[in-house]
């Protein structure tokens, strides 16, 4: 056999469209079309392969449609499959030519070989041309009654495809009823599974317009039907099991006995090696027990070990997906995982997205007994070469401190960070010390002593600089040179690019002025003048506001700008609990991995301009195996 042509070539979309090659192919195909010579199938295979490889890399080869159809009169099944693939791809843009294929597809639908029947039926239903649906109804009807389960499997999906091409044809031919019959009576579990998914899609689509469909959809969640599926669950393939489990989640059991029965029946699914089955089962357990607090707790305990096993076995893709789910559970019930904190220690070579999740989990599970060890571990990461993770770790230490366990030791650690003399460590630590002081003002003495030693020239990041300036303003009475530092910062007003820093600087100078007026007066004048001349609207407005306040009454101004403060007890959460519950409802889906509910990334209006490009717009959300795109790391 000659080596395939595509190995010598490196196809790339950026290459010219290969017009001459296509014409070449066309004439070659034409020559072969009528040939009966021995070995002609082999040469056809080579040509077909070329056509399909062009198709794959995006060259338009629809112009050889006629020739492909002419060549398809063959008994070679490999050739047939390639031809079907080609036809399925171009039929939609060439409805007239697609008509040419109807004949041979219909003939193949009556072939002796069930394989050919199935293949032809699949291709026929994949043509996706509205004018041709009339040719589809007959073969589909025959296919649904076929003796061979493969043909039936294909036919059921065919009905669904028909529904998407033409709703009325599908309903008029009474296909839903046939599917329902198969759903309840077919011996082959894959046929049953396909019926289930087809009917779910069809009735979901119809429910808005037809009361019958609504009733039918509810009937899928009836007790006898759910039990019928559950009792046969082990006969289903692993993917069909996920489908069944997904349906069971929506079922509302009548009493707690029923809940326990279902959970006992499904218990061994948690030992399945397929992560999709385990997660689907976990979802059933979690949702069934939502109203039973203590049992819900036990469910967490029960699903913990299988999920941890899934994280550590298998590919990085699986680990990450399962870890995201664990993350969700940890965030909901950190106390359940408090003894397992060592599982969330980061490993040196883990990718940063895994480390990030783990850091958040470590933060969440920290309690009185583990805080010390966890913080020690986190401090190790802070010295890490991986800078983003080092930053995250410092933030994590700060968050633990704000959770108010054993603050004493943590404050020392944070202050050590400030002495590490690495820019990014200092920057992160400054932001944290600021937050810490807002919550625990009693630590101000220790902190200020260290913060005072930091030269403002070494702090460049806007957030850190703003934090430092805030502290200078807030604690100016304790820092002897605060007014002078602020003054020198004011002198460099024009070099400060971040509006946030300039805003903080204005406020800090004001605060300092109220505490130490004679030393600050000069700086205040300079700051207000610079602020009024600032091109940034907020800075300008604030400077003007302060100016007028001071003009009006200095004591009032002090009450406004520097009132006595109460310590912050709880910092506002970044995600509302409503959003979190939505994500939990969508357990076992991409929502968990993205950490946002599905409407935020499927509905256009919720997506930010840069968040996702349009490709996700029409994606339906189901199980987590829903992602269409994959990259092969080739070498």
């Amino acid at each position, binding site marked *: 056999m000659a080596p395939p042509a595509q190995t010598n070539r490196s196809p790339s979309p950026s290459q010219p469209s290969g017009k001459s090659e296509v014409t070449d192919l066309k004439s070659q195909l034409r020559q072969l079309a009528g040939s009966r010579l021995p070995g002609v199938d082999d040469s056809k295979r080579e040509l077909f392969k070329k056509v399909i490889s062009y198709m794959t890399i995006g060259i338009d080869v629809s112009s050889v449609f006629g020739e492909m159809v002419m060549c398809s009169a063959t008994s070679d099944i490999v050739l047939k499959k390639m031809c079907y693939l080609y036809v399925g791809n171009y039929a939609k843009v060439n409805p007239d030519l697609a008509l040419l294929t109807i004949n041979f597809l219909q003939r193949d639908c009556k072939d002796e070989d069930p394989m050919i029947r199935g293949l032809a039926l699949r291709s026929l239903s994949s043509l996706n041309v509205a004018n041709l649906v009339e040719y589809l109804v007959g073969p589909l009807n025959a296919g649904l009654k076929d003796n061979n389960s493969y043909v039936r499997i294909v036919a059921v999906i065919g009905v669904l495809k028909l529904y998407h091409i033409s709703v009325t044809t599908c309903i008029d031919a009474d296909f839903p009823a046939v599917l329902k019959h198969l759903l309840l009576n077919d011996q082959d579990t894959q046929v049953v599974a396909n019926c289930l998914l087809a009917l779910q899609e069809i009735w979901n689509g119809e429910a808005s317009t037809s009361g019958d469909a609504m009733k039918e959809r509810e009937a899928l969640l009836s007790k006898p039907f759910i039990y019928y599926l559950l009792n046969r669950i082990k006969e289903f393939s692993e993917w069909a099991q996920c489908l069944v489990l997904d349906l069971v989640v929506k079922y509302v059991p009548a009493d707690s006995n029923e809940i326990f029965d279902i959970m006992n029946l499904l218990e061994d699914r948690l030992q399945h090696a397929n992560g999709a089955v385990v997660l689907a089962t976990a979802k059933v357990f979690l949702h069934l027990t939502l109203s039973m607090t203590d049992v819900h707790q036990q469910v967490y305990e029960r699903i913990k070990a299988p999920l941890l096993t899934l994280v550590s076995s298998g590919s990085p893709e699986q680990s990450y997906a399962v870890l995201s789910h664990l993350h969700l559970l940890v965030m909901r019930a950190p106390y359940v995982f408090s003894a397992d904190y060592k599982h969330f220690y980061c490993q040196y070579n883990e990718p940063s997205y895994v480390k990030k999740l783990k850091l958040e989990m470590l933060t969440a599970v920290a309690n009185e007994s583990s805080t010390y060890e966890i913080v020690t571990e986190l401090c190790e990461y802070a010295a890490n070469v991986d800078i983003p993770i080092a930053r995250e770790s410092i933030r994590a230490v700060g968050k633990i401190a704000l959770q108010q366990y054993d603050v004493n030791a943590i404050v020392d650690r944070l202050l050590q960070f400030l002495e590490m003399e690495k820019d990014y460590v200092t920057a992160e630590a400054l932001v944290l010390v600021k937050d810490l002081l807002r919550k625990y003002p009693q630590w101000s003495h220790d902190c200020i002593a260290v913060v005072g030693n930091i030269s403002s020239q070494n702090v460049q990041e806007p957030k850190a600089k703003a934090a430092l300036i805030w502290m200078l303003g807030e604690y100016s009475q304790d820092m002897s040179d605060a007014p002078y530092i602020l003054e020198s910062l004011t002198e460099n007003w024009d070099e400060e690019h971040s509006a946030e820093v300039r805003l903080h600087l204005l406020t800090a100078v004001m605060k300092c002025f109220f505490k130490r007026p004679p030393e600050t007066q000069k700086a205040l004048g300079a700051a207000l003048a610079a602020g009024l001349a600032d091109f940034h609207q907020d800075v300008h407005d604030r400077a003007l506001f302060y100016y007028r306040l001071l003009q009006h009454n200095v004591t009032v101004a002090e009450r406004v700008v520097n009132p006595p403060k109460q310590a912050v007890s709880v910092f506002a959460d970044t995600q509302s609990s409503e959003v979190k519950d939505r994500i939990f409802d969508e357990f076992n889906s991409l929502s968990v991995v993205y950490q946002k509910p599905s409407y935020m990334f499927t509905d256009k209006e919720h997506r930010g301009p840069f968040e996702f*490009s349009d490709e996700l717009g029409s994606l339906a959300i189901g199980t987590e195996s829903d992602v269409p795109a994959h990259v092969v790391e080739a070498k």
Partner: protein
Amino acid sequence: MISQFFVLSQRGDNIVFRDYRGEVQKGSAEIFFRKVKFWKEDGEEEAPPLSLMWMVIARVIKDYLGVLNEDSLRKNFVLVYELLDEVIDFGYVQTTSTELLKSYVFNEPLVVDAARLQPLSPAAIFMQGTKRMPGTAVTKSVVANEPGGRKREEIFVDIIEKISVTFSSSGYILTSEIDGTIQMKSYLSGNPEIKLALNEDLSIGRGDYRSSFGSGAVILDDCNFHESVRLDNFDLDRTLTLVPPDGEFPVMNYRMTQEFKPPFRINTLIEEAGALKAEVILKVSAEFPSSVTANTIIVQMPLPKYTTRVNFELEPGALGQTTDFKEANRRLEWALKKTVGGSEHTLRAKLTFSQELHGNITKEAGPVSMTFTIPMYNASRLQVKYLQIAKKSSTYNPYRWVAMWRTSTRLFSRSFLCAQVPFPDQNSTIHPTIPTFPKPELPPDSELLNALKSLLHRSPSFHLVLMSRLLQNPEKPEGPKQLDLPEPALPTLAHEHNSAFLSPPSPLNQSSSS
């Protein structure tokens, strides 16, 4: 639901592209590619992986193609399309069982790398890459046949363990975990039932492990099993019964945090010697039995970023050791080809810095990490005691025996251990660890040939290659004695510590399981 499935090359062009539902706009592949390629502008973070489906499909494709890489995908894209058509219909997964797919898929795989193993006759050079041949055991396609048309009956069982240990500076173990899997790859025809016996003292769940520790029992934290595994007798005698489907699959995954003895210990010392100099001393001691050999040991340590020069000093007479200072990422690398149990190796490295040290040098360097493989050693002591293959047929027919005896069965176990040791700094105690699995990919052909010549001292994937070469050897005697073959075939022999052995099924077992 899956709307589209595509595989892109590193440059972003489609290798395989299949649109299932026709509801996604054009250009999705390109958008995806850009998202991955330019995930974060600074390039500091990688894009997280998004899909579980890919790994499943990748497994199926690998079963068919033997080797999964860009080359084999490009060569076999028609077969891949055929598979994709059967695996997913209209966005719904139909089946991912290699076994079931076999009857629907007709393209024959063009095996890539395997062909290069053929004796290099002049003809073979021209046939390279396109010739269909069975290749090696692990990289063999499930559908490829022997040149003679006869299928080789074999089944591979691997116990692969990934060990993560973290030592404190004082050598105390902070965390230790074993993630293991019993991997099976079956090429048996007729789908006979297989019985796999594990340690009898195996227990699952951490409930009472404090009390039973020390008794030598193997206690797993948790495990899961492949769909085909039946656990009817598991509680009774720790046997798994299964009818192995074709292709590669994990029989069982397990996780263990029980204490175990790590095979290596690393001691690190770092001394400042003047303002611009420091000395690092690394000592690796192998704490496993002297009958076992560890291969391809690599010790790595990040150095302070202003390190300009490193002078290495190996112990006198050191063989098969290389040292390197990777200037680009300031990393010290020390590779040892092999080391026998009980031995010790030391490396001294003198560092020169371009600027004066300030602060603590231990904060700037480390942690030390180490990767290696040890064939025929598993730290968890989990074992496959025996493996029985029962042909589904009457035992009264003596010819059946021959057929059964000729089944060549192989057991492997190997461990990968990775450990990290932080510097002897009192505050730095806990360190993360590195698990790495060498990719089960074949190395380039020149290397393979060398491996064939020098047989033994290579990584486990080489052993698999070698084994299958031995299996192809026609001079092997036939009959019952064949079951003893695994031993000579294994370069590093099984010993008590890891008594992965085979027991020939007795006639009684045969009749009972038929």
